[in-house]
């Protein structure tokens, strides 16, 4: 099923021709209207007219999160404020937030791409979409909302929080599609259990989860507990918001990035060199239709790879593989690179272990230490000390065997790890570097 069959299945040569045409127009626009880009292009000696093929994109400079911070709040906008109809901002964990502005046409395209995403996930006009992404400056809530309305589905703008009420509404309103972060989905499953509600009795069939990296193992966990198909969605406010890329329900294998609006590249994050198809590296995206804040070669800091192989769903748009994390989430423990999602996959693979975990990193006598906190619930509890100690040892061993990191597993009481209604906190880094 497609929302916009013509564009979603455009043969690659036509798609690439469209990309080039749109890229050239976007470069002209930013060169004319954004001093930052004019200066950056001039510094590398490239004029927009020099870009004659998609490969020439490689010659252009990157845009970074820092560039956006330096231009706070509106420095990178390419249109006058009268044209801007919406402003969003990403949570600034360090210092000021990153601000993005949308023209009416930007909102229109975003709504369409989000509608395409819903259809790709298996949702349709007749669905009741329970949108538990936060509404506000965060793009999740409104992004999914506009896409659901564009699709013609019935959207419940419940936003995050008040989980008991969420469950009651899912039950009473007959929600069929759930949108939220994967960690919140699991939290809902826990709360439902406390309330005596079985997800098998609900009408939910699909969940669209994103805004934080999650593992394939966690998908299995969510699908079993919530009795639905769990679909991975990707987006970031700098580029647009949710709906930049999404899995198709047919394959559940890689996220189709809407290439008629975005050009993806994978680079080596250390050298900036472009990597070949299938190689893992940092995702770089160029927006080619955006008006409010077009970004050229934006470094997302997300680590993934790209595949151009045709997909069984019929879409011709390239797929990015499941994110292993953000390059800034990557932990370096005694020189070993590790993403929290890799540890999560190991934990979920151990029978009975719940995907609620916390990684505590510290430094003792100049050595990095990693403590993995895992909650002990009835499935893994035993009245015998040795059985629990064996479990802790097994966690330590599997992490050591698979990731090469020595850690200490710490068993903690159930629900003692903080639950999140938005993005989960998985890491506490106490190192003073």
């Amino acid at each position, binding site marked *: 099923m497609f929302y916009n069959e013509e564009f979603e299945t455009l043969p690659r040569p036509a798609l690439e021709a469209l990309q080039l045409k749109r890229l050239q127009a976007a470069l002209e626009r930013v060169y004319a209207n954004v001093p930052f880009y004019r200066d950056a292009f001039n510094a590398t000696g490239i004029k927009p007219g020099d870009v004659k093929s998609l490969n020439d994109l490689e010659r252009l400079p990157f845009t970074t999160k820092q560039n956006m911070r330096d231009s706070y709040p509106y420095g990178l906008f390419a249109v006058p404020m009268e044209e801007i109809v919406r402003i969003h901002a990403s949570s600034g964990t360090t210092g000021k937030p990153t601000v993005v502005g949308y023209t009416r046409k930007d909102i229109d395209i975003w709504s369409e791409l989000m509608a395409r995403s819903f259809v790709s996930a298996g949702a349709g006009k007749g669905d009741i979409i329970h949108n538990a992404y936060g509404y506000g400056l965060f793009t999740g809530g409104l992004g999914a909302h506009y896409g659901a309305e564009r699709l013609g589905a019935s959207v419940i703008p419940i936003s995050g929080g008040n989980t008991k009420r969420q469950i009651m509404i899912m039950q009473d309103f007959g929600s069929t599609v759930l949108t939220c972060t994967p960690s919140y989905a699991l939290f809902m499953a826990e709360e439902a259990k406390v309330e005596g509600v079985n997800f098998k009795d609900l009408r939910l069939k699909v969940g669209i989860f994103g805004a934080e990296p999650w593992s394939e193992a966690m998908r299995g966990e969510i699908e079993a507990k919530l009795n639905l198909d769990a679909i991975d969605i990707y987006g970031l406010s700098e580029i647009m918001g949710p709906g930049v890329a999404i899995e198709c329900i047919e394959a559940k294998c890689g996220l189709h990035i809407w290439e008629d609006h975005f050009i993806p590249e994978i680079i080596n994050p250390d050298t900036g060199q472009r990597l070949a198809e299938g190689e893992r590296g940092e995702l770089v995206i160029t927006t080619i239709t955006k008006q409010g804040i077009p970004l050229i070669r934006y470094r997302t800091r997300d680590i993934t790879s790209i595949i151009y192989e045709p997909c069984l769903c019929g879409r011709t748009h390239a797929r990015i593989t499941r994110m292993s994390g953000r390059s800034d989430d990557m932990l370096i423990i005694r020189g070993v690179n590790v993403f929290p999602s890799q540890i999560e996959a190991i934990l979920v693979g151990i029978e009975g272990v719940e995907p609620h975990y916390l990684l505590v990193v510290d430094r003792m006598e100049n050595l990095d230490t990693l403590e993995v906190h895992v909650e002990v*619930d*009835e499935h893994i509890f035993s009245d015998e000390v040795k059985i629990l100690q064996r479990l802790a040892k097994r966690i330590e061993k599997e992490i050591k065997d698979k990731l090469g990191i020595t850690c200490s597993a*710490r068993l903690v009481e*159930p629900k003692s790890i903080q639950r999140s209604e938005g993005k989960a906190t998985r890491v506490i880094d106490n190192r003073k570097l």
Partner: protein
Amino acid sequence: MKVEQLSIFIENKSGRLAEVTRILGEAGINIRVLSLADTSDFGILRLIVDKVEQAKFALKEKGFTVDKTEVVAVEVPDRPGGMANILQSIDNNQINIEYMYAFVERGGGNAVIIFRFDDTEKAIEALKSNGFNIIDGQQLYSM
């Protein structure tokens, strides 16, 4: 012939044991026997109480992980050699003890030993045939 014991997972941090006993106290539950197995990170509190189901419910409601297991309570004379005697008998029958704890009966000349065996049924048979007095759960809960 068996006794129901509750085991509770407790993190090794201040106030957790107090919290468990407070919850039980407020629920009107009387603790008959307790034992705590501890490691550097966590402990397992094992309890025999007068009202097992109510105690389990009260603790679970407060978010504790609680498990119910069957243990065996055996009465032995409270005198030198009393314990050695029964342990020898258990060993002779090749039964493994996972853990045990004991208390002395009020006013009487007997001690009560609580055992967790790897094979509870076999242990009960062996102890009975060797003439040991096994205490029934109901008797222990109201002791």
